[in-house]
Structures are given as structure tokens and as C-alpha cells.
């Protein structure tokens, strides 16, 4: 603040000086308003009173970097050793200074305790309790983290207790500030209620015949349902990625036959623009629609969006199959697009299913001799890299050795797209004929017959 004042005091002085000089030289320019000269801020001068803190600070910074090195190398013991010294920085300045290192200690300590071979869950909980008192500003975050670790350790009941405790935490305005965290805590409690519900359901289904037990179990189950549903419903109203909550909530709703609400929830989750783009939202919607036996049209529209977000998604096979079967030309063309796009990704490179989808559709088009332009269109952007990416001699060899049917499908595609002389096709058909496999002979015949197609595909645009 001081430097600010100084700068402003100085600035006009400079300007005044200038004005006077100008006035003497040419009165005409005098009228021109001089812009105020604002001096930029100088970096803070090293003050000797600050220097005395440097050694403590430096030593703790060095300590921190040793901890980080040890963590990266998974030397938990060493990290613990240095953390023992680092915790002192909590006491930094005896009075007022803002506490910086407490979050660091929380995070690092958690990491060490989680990985260290000698640490026990009891100690971990003890540590967490201390961290909760250390910073009210992250109280609920620490609670959540604690719960996660309890869950990972299989201590479901303790986790539930902790969630309930955290939910009832009140600390002045801090409670309001950590509004989002409280929602999360409630949601996780809902999730655990869902788990209990699910267990009860299992019991109920197993002892379906035992009429007496049914009633009590059913009542209890319904109780869990109510508790879970309330909390889960709350969290998924807030824009965010809530896959696990949505899935559980939909499961609950479906079980009790509330399909409309489930559909609404899933639609909201998938299509509300306030929510971040989330492929799973569309997957869940698609799966739900499929379970409900919805029309092809709505299934396709769900997958269309998924295709736009993740062209390499595993559901693209289903999508392609559905589109191929469609009577509409446009849809069939889209199917071709979809399968080509999927095969652009390494993950699909050796997927026989995907290649057979492509082979089937290409074959269909070639036989019907209609819509060769579709292939051409797709091939245009790929012809300079697919041959090396998919159809090298090396891959031909490897595919032949590892998966005959994959190499069959790929050879068909290669033969159509690159002609009968291409390396992949030549190698595979040669090997196939040598092994006297009938389908490879057929393949050779088919490709040779339709060889001119490749010229049309790879030629200049019509």
C-alpha cells in the first residue's frame, strides 16, 4: 500500500515539470492535455526485517522438496522422516500469519499413511481427525477423503458414521461456504444407503419363498430406498459429473417402476447444456432406452451424440450395426462413416468385430455397385495414412499369425480399397490359399472380380 501512495505522489510532480517546460517553448501545445504518468510498480525491496524469516522458510522449503522427491520415488519412510520435520511449519509465525502448509501436510500425510507398509487404519483415522481440526476451511473435504479411505478399506459402517457426523457439522458461516461439499457428503451417504438397499434386495430375491421374512426385509429395504433417493436426487440436480449417483438413482427408480422419472433424469443428465459434456450420460441413456425397448430412432439419436463426443466408443459397433440395417440411405451412409471413424483409433486396430462390420458394409456396397462414392468420400482423407497404419506387410504377417478371421476381414477391405496388388491383401490371400482355406479362396475371387472398383475409389473425384 505504501508504494502505491508513493507512486501517486510522485507521478504528478513529473507531469508538472513537463508542462512548465512546454509552456516556455510553445504555448500552443499547452492546451494539449498531458496524460498522467503512472509509474509502474517496483518489485518489493528486500527489507531486513523480512530477511530474518528466510532461513526458517528456506529450510522448510528444502524439506518440502525432499519430501516430494521421496514421494515420487515411493520412499515412504524417507518421506515420513522429512515430514516429521516439515510439520513444524504449522507453527510458522507465532501469531497471525496465514496457515499455508496445513493443506500440504494433509495431502502428503495422507499419501504417506496410505502407502506406508507399517501404517494402520487406526492411525490413519487419528491423523484425519487432527487434520479436521487443523483447517475448518476444508473440514468437509478432509471428511470426504477420510470416508473414501475407509471405504477402500472396507469399513462401510465407519464410513457411514463419518458421513452422518460430517453432515451435522455446524461452524458458523463456514457451513454455508462449504455448501457444495455438504451436498457431496449427503450424496455419498445416499450412495451407501443405496448399497444397503441393494444388499436387502439380494436377500429378498434369494429368500423369495420365505413369506415371513419378506415383510420386515421389504420394509427395511423401502426405508433405505427413501433415504438414498432423497440425497441422490439432490446431487444430480447440480451440474456436474455424477455417473455413479445417476446410475444408482436410475436403478432405484427402475426397480420401483418409475420409468418416467428415470427417463427424465437421464435426459436431463445427457442433454442439459449446463452439465459438462459427458459421454457416459449418453451411454446410460442409451442403455436405459434399450432396456425399455424403445424405438430404433431414439436409440440412434442417443448414440449419434455419443459418436460426436467419442467416435472411438465401444458402442460404435452397435451403432454401426443399427445404421447398416436401416432402410434410409442417409443412415446407412452414416454407418459407414461411424465405422471408418472408429477404426481411425489404435484401440480398434485389431478388433475383428469392427473390421467385419466395415468389411460387410463395403462388400454390400461393392456388390450393389451403388454408393461407391460413400466409400470414396471416406477413403479420400485416409488413403495417405491408412495403408501404413493398417495395411502394412508387417501387420499382414502378424494378423495372419494371431487372428485368421481378422486378417480375412482386413484383407477384404484392403483388396477393395487398394486393389488386388496391395501388400496386405497379397500376403493374406497367398497364405490363405496356401493353407487351402476356402473362405480365403472366395475372398481372392471376390476381390479380383471387383478390382476395377478400387480405381474408381482412389481416382479423382467424379
Amino acid at each position, binding site marked *: 500500500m505504501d508504494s502505491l501512495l508513493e507512486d501517486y505522489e510522485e507521478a504528478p510532480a513529473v507531469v508538472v515539470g513537463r508542462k512548465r517546460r512546454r509552456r516556455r517553448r510553445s504555448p500552443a501545445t499547452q492546451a494539449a492535455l498531458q496524460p498522467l504518468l503512472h509509474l509502474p510498480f517496483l518489485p518489493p525491496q528486500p527489507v531486513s526485517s523480512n*530477511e*530474518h*524469516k*528466510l*532461513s*526458517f522458510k528456506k*529450510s*522448510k522449503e*528444502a*524439506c518440502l522438496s*525432499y519430501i516430494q522427491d521421496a514421494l515420487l520415488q515411493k520412499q*515412504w*519412510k*524417507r518421506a*515420513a*522422516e*522429512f*515430514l*516429521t*520435520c516439515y*510439520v*513444524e511449519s*504449522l*507453527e510458522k509465525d*507465532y*501469531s*497471525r500469519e496465514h496457515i499455508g502448509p496445513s493443506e500440504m*501436510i494433509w495431502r502428503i*500425510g495422507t499419501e*504417506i*499413511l496410505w502407502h*506406508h507398509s*507399517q*501404517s494402520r487404519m487406526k*492411525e490413519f483415522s*487419528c*491423523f484425519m481427525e*487432527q487434520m479436521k*481440526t*487443523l483447517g475448518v476451511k476444508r473440514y468437509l473435504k478432509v471428511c470426504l477423503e477420510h470416508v473414501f479411505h475407509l471405504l477402500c478399506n472396507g469399513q462401510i459402517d465407519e464410513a457411514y458414521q463419518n458421513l452422518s457426523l460430517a453432515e451435522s457439522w455446524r461452524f458458523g458461516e463456514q457451513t454455508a461456504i462449504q455448501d457444495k461439499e455438504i451436498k457431496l457428503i449427503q450424496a455419498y451417504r445416499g450412495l451407501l444407503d443405496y448399497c444397503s438397499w441393494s444388499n436387502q434386495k439380494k436377500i429378498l430375491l434369494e429368500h423369495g419363498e420365505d413369506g415371513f421374512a419378506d415383510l420386515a426385509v421389504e420394509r427395511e429395504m423401502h426405508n433405505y430406498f427413501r433415504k438414498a433417493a432423497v440425497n441422490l436426487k439432490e446431487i444430480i440436480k447440480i451440474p456436474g459429473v455424477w455417473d455413479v449417483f445417476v446410475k444408482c438413482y436410475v436403478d432405484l427408480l427402475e426397480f420401483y417402476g418409475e420409468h418416467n422419472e428415470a427417463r427424465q433424469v437421464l435426459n436431463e443428465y445427457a442433454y442439459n447444456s449446463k452439465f459438462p459434456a459427458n459421454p457416459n450420460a449418453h451411454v446410460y441413456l442409451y442403455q436405459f432406452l434399450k432396456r425399455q425397448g424403445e424405438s430404433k430412432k431414439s436409440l440412434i439419436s442417443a448414440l449419434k451424440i455419443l459418436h460426436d463426443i467419442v467416435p472411438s466408443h465401444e458402442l460404435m459397433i452397435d451403432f454401426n450395426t443399427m445404421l447398416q440395417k436401416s432402410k434410409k440411405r442417409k443412415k446407412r451412409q452414416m454407418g459407414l462413416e461411424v465405422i471408418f471413424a472408429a477404426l481411425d483409433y489404435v484401440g480398434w486396430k485389431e478388433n475383428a468385430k469392427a473390421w467385419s462390420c466395415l468389411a460387410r458394409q463395403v462388400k454390400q456396397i461393392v456388390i450393389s455397385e451403388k454408393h461407391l462414392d460413400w466409400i470414396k468420400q471416406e477413403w479420400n482423407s485416409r488413403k495417405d495414412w491408412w495403408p501404413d497404419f493398417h495395411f502394412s506387410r508387417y501387420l499382414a504377417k502378424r494378423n495372419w499369425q494371431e487372428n485368421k478371421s481378422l486378417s480375412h476381414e482386413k484383407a477384404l477391405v484392403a483388396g477393395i480399397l487398394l486393389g488386388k496388388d496391395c501388400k496386405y491383401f497379397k500376403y493374406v490371400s497367398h497364405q490363405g490359399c496356401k493353407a487351402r482355406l476356402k473362405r480365403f479362396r472366395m475372398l481372392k475371387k471376390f476381390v479380383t472380380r471387383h478390382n476395377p472398383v478400387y480405381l474408381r475409389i482412389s481416382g479423382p473425384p467424379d
Partner: protein
Amino acid sequence: MDEEDTRDFNERCAQCSEVNWGLTDGGRFYCRSCHNVTERAREVVNTDFITNSRVQTISKGLKKQEKNDGGCEWYICEGFQLVLKKQVEALEALGVCPQMKDEILCNFWRCYLQKSKQAYCKRPAGETVKTLSVCESSTDVDSDPERPSLLHLLSLSESEGDLQTDCSFASSVSKVSESTSVYSGSVDGSLYLMKNQKEKLRMTMPMTLSFCYLALLWVREPITLSEFLRFVVEGHIPYMNVFQHFPEKMKLCGLDLKIFCVESWPEYKEVFNKMHELAAFLDLPRFPDITESCFLHPDMLCMKYLMEANLPDELHNWTCRVVKKIGIGEVDFLTLTPGNKSTRKVKYDVLAAAVIVVVLKLLFLLDDHYEWLLSEFAEERNKNNTEGGPYFEFKKWYEVVKHSLDVEQKKLDEEKAKYLWRCEKPLFYSVKNKSKVLKRRQMVVNLQNQFGKLSGSVQRAEKPNPSSFQLSWSEENTDGSCFHGHSLKGVLQEKCGLLTVMNPDYWLCTVKLCNEKLCGHLAHYREVEFPQSYHFVLGLFSFLLRIQPSYIHDEVCMIEHRLFNKKLCKKLKYNTVLRKIKRPKTSSVKPM
């Protein structure tokens, strides 16, 4: 003012029947004749009493136990006195001569208190407020040198009773009235920091070390400043958290923390400069002579550092020649004469290290080329000829020393990072956050216990005994890692019956020295501009002395300039004649 305030109070004293009243700092009347304090308090608070906040009061001879937290009244200088006492006791335990405490340091301290007008003096001249009997009591002390006040305190062990202060202490210190005082546990903590004591040398924690070293220097103890500071860092001499040794009744809080809590290690330059300021401030006479038989003489120190740096003993001959040639072994050069501004203050340890560096430069040039050439030559010779001592191989030496240095440096760095700064005694700025501080302290202890268990390392055992040597090389080791006995024959040649250096050239670290008084440095060290061998040697000594390489570099430049003074003058004149052709960074001259 007191006269005014007491004018209306005319009762006779119950004890001696006199009417001679003064006011205590609690606002009560006391008898100036018999020091009897009455129950009567002054009722009216007049306005100038408030505006003139610094009211002169007198403190009773005994400690006032007024504070409800069980603390007693104490003054900052008492705190420092305790610190000094602790430090000098530690030094005694390390084996310094027993007179140092009571005869040297104690006198320095008394002298300081007097010169800074904290005790043994009349009222400070600047004070407008007249005091009553205070002056008398302090002159009493002055006139009676046998009075065991301070000396008594220094040698008093805590078990003998409460810390006592006599009037002489408190009298000269004015108390800030409650309304304006900033919170502190001591009586004068706030005043101490506020006072603009330009003419007085204000006591600080690093200053306690200056005091100690000044006393060490006076008795010519065989310890260098760098070594002394290393002992401080290693915890052999109390410095960090020294307040934990304060008696229970001396409560530290508020501004006292700013004075007594240190959060950094003492810095060589600061302690060194303060020491000289102090010597001048105390008007000390010329110190005892540093002669050739003294540990601090460069010839002696060079021997020590040559051993520690694992360099051949033969080099000592050369360091002595350099020392003699430039006269830095003279008594007048070495002996500290306080207040003499014309002479440069000698940093004995840095000087000796720099002499060795210069000798290495004379013999090996350290230009990243010549030393390796010589090393190859020596290696060849050692291969073919096993008779006599081996020739000194720079390369081998570099490898051996570099390895140990890296190991030690790493150890040191880790230790620094692991240093625990806090002590058992919790400190808090104010009572308000006492519970918070205690809670936090408890949590830190808990966490330390928890992670200490996981760290697997046993809690560090007792600290190792202090040692003058950080690196040690023993000739008994047969692995050839000790170079003390190696010969320099490879780098010397005989000329007219004298051994001289084979190397005909020399490069100067700088052509022109800076003005130390204006710029703060003699020279400026930038690592990239110098050969790596040179940097390595500087780094080695900088590790041994725990100071920055640039300090040694400055000293190297100084020695070089003394050494090549004549040649340089000629050269500079020549250069100016040539209208200042752009000079190279370093310039070469022929050695001696």
C-alpha cells in the same frame, strides 16, 4: 513533575517521619529517605501526565511480582545478559580459558551497558524528565566498582535464587505507560524496538555472537569466526531458542519475540561487522598481538586448511612465501585495532583460505587446462616410477575430494532441511492466542510422533562432539585417498638453486578492485565467468568455512592485487596510454 504531584501530600512518613515523598510507578507515594512505600496513591491524573507518556519512575530493588501470570518485571538487557551467560558457559565447556567469562566478556558487557547508557551511568542527557533519587542510586553503583551487581549476575547460577536486578539497571530505563505500550513481556521491549538508537549500538541476537567472538579474539583462543559460527549452527553454543533457558518468571511475549526469537542462522558478515562496530563502540584498546605462533596467523591457519583440503604439505612452504611477500603475516596487519578506519579488517579464516587458492593458482593455474596437463604428466611419472613419494595428481585429488565433498554437502543439506526450529517452550505473541498456540504445538508434537514412528530412523542420538575438522584424511588409509605426503616435484623446477614454479603465466581474477566501502565488495563473483577448477576450489573452502564463495573470491582478488601490485600499476598505465582498449575479463601477468 513528581515534585508537583507530591507537593500536596504532606503527611509524615510512618517510618522515619520525614516529608520527602516520591511517586512509584504504581502511582503510590514512597518516602525518598527511607524508601518506605505507603498505601496512599495519587488520585488526580492530570493531563500532561497522559500526553507525556514517558514518565520517569523508579523500580524497587526487588522484583515486582505484580503480574498475575506469575511473571516478574525484567528488562531486555537482562535477557541478553542471560543469553551471553549461556553462550560463554558453553564456550567454557568447550575449553576456552576460564578467565574469558568473568574477566573479558563480563567487562565488555559492563562497558557496553555503560556506553549505551543502560547502566552504570547518569541519566541520559536527552531526557527532559528529572528523576528523583535514581541518579544517586546509579552513581552509587558507579562509585563502587566492587559492587557485585553484574559480575555477580553473570556468575550466579539460577538455582541460587531469582534473577535480581538492582536499581542501576532499572533506573536508567524509562517505562512506557500502559496506555501507549505495545504488548511485551519485558518492561522495555516495545521501547527497545521503537527507540531510534543510532548513536547507541542496539543489542540483537547476532550481536551476542559478536560479543563472544570479540572476547575469544581478545584471549586469542584458537578458533576462527567461521568455526565459531559452525559450532553455533551445530548446537554446541546456545543461540537458537536460547530463551528456553530463561527463568520461569521471565515471560516472553509480544515484542520480546521479535528480539529474542531468531529464525535464521547467524551470518558471517553480519557478526563480523557488528563485532568491529562493537569494538569501536566500546573504545577498546589495541587487541593482543597476533604473532606467528598464534592460531589465527595465516601460516598456522593455512596449515590447518591444507590438511583439511587434503592438499600436499609441501604447499605450506608456498603459502608462507606468499604471506611473507605481501606482508599479511605482519603483526600490525593482523592485530585488531578498534576504531582504526585506515586498516582493513582481517577475516583470518577467509584470508588463509584465499592464500591457499592463490598458491594453487600460481602452481596449477586453475584455468581448466593447465592443471589437467600437469596431472597427466604426474600420472605418467607415477606409473613408471614408484620410488619416493608419489607426484601430486590434480585429477586424482579432484576426484577424491569432490566425492567426499558431495557426500558431506548432501548430508549437510539434508540436515539443514531436517533441522527442528522449535523448542519445548511454547511462545505466543499475546495471551489471547496462547491456547491456540499451545493447541497447535500439541498437534505438531502428535504429528511428529506419528510420522517419526513411520520414518524408521531412530531419533538422532546425542549430537557429535564438536570438531575443528569437517573433512579428515588419514595417511594410514592405504587406499591412496590422502595427498598430504604427495610431492610437488612435477610442477616445480630448479632455477639457480631455487625451486620455482614451472608455470610461467598467471591470470588475475579481476583487473580492478571495487571500493569496498562504497560497493560492499572488493570484487564480484559470477560463477560462469570463471574456470570450473577455480570454482571447485572456492566451493571446497566455502564448504569448509560455511560462507559464500564470493567472500573468498574477494579475498583472493585482494591478495592478487597485493602480490602483483607493481606489475599491475605498470600495466594499467600502459593501458591508459593505449586509450583504453577493451580489456579482457581476466588479464594475465607473469608470476613473481
